[in-house]
């Protein structure tokens, strides 16, 4: 098996806690902090750490606003994040093809 695709996998996305977050954001234009937390059943602290890592990598944009005087944090993939995710999925598919000998 050629190890090259595996070595090319984006380490920021290829992490147990961050891959689900990026997957959710790839399927939705934006999601609130609470939606992501409830869907993934993560703690506030854990989710905050992963979101900060993704933001620092330039993969997500975090917007803080107020709705009915309550803070609302929403997250969305940036173009760079979407491109990185597409590339990541492409590499996974390539690995699967190699594994199956297609």
């Amino acid at each position, binding site marked *: 098996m050629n190890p090259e695709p595996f070595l090319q996998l984006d380490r920021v996305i290829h992490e147990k806690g961050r891959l*689900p977050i990026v*997957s959710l954001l790839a399927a*939705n234009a934006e999601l609130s902090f*609470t939606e992501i937390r409830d*869907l993934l059943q993560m703690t506030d602290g854990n989710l905050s750490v992963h979101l900060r890592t993704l933001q620092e990598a330039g993969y997500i944009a975090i917007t803080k606003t107020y*709705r009915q005087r309550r803070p609302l944090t929403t997250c969305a993939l940036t173009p760079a994040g979407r491109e990185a995710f597409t590339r990541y999925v492409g590499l996974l*598919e390539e690995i699967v093809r190699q594994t199956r000998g297609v």
Partner: protein
Amino acid sequence: MQSESMEPNWAADHLQVIRTLMERSAVYRRALAPMMLWAGALGTAAGAAGLLWPVDHPVRFILFWLAIALVTMTGSFLMVRRQALREAEPFWSPPARRVVRAAAPAAACGLGLALVIGAHLLGEAGDSSLWRLMTFQMLPVIWAGLYGCGMHAAGFFMPRGMRWFGTGMVAVALVLLAAGNPGLEPFQWGHGVMAICFGLLHLGYGAYLVSTERPHAAL
């Protein structure tokens, strides 16, 4: 991580996780039980009111039930909005848009059919017994069938049995269509069908949801 590369199925497993998460995130998650109970209570009460009042003119029958539908949708809208505000989430979310888009064609057909029949009743054909029969005998069953189709389509973006509810609504509508009026006055049959389909079925599904919905998801 390196050992992961030696595991033959990990990449396929990752892809499956991604697919599942993307699908799950597209599901509409507002608590449905209060809306179903509201719609069911209103549908049942409206059916009884239509029988006792009585609403026995075909045009009034159509207007009466369109008004009930409007009140039901307004109440449901306010419940959804209240849930969204309480959870500090957007009301018009991507899943909400998908649900509305899925149900819209069937709703438009039902409304269009009512308007066409109403126009005929008000026009030259107003005295035709055919159109009166169409209003009381057929329209409620067609409305129920279309509503079932709409709920079934929306159910692809909603959790917990909505597709089954839609299927059940279509099945009940077809059974009532096949059974036909057992000899009641046409307006009684019409209100009865509406009360069964839009009242009792909603109440039944709402009761099921109340008994199974997670506590924090309730209104």
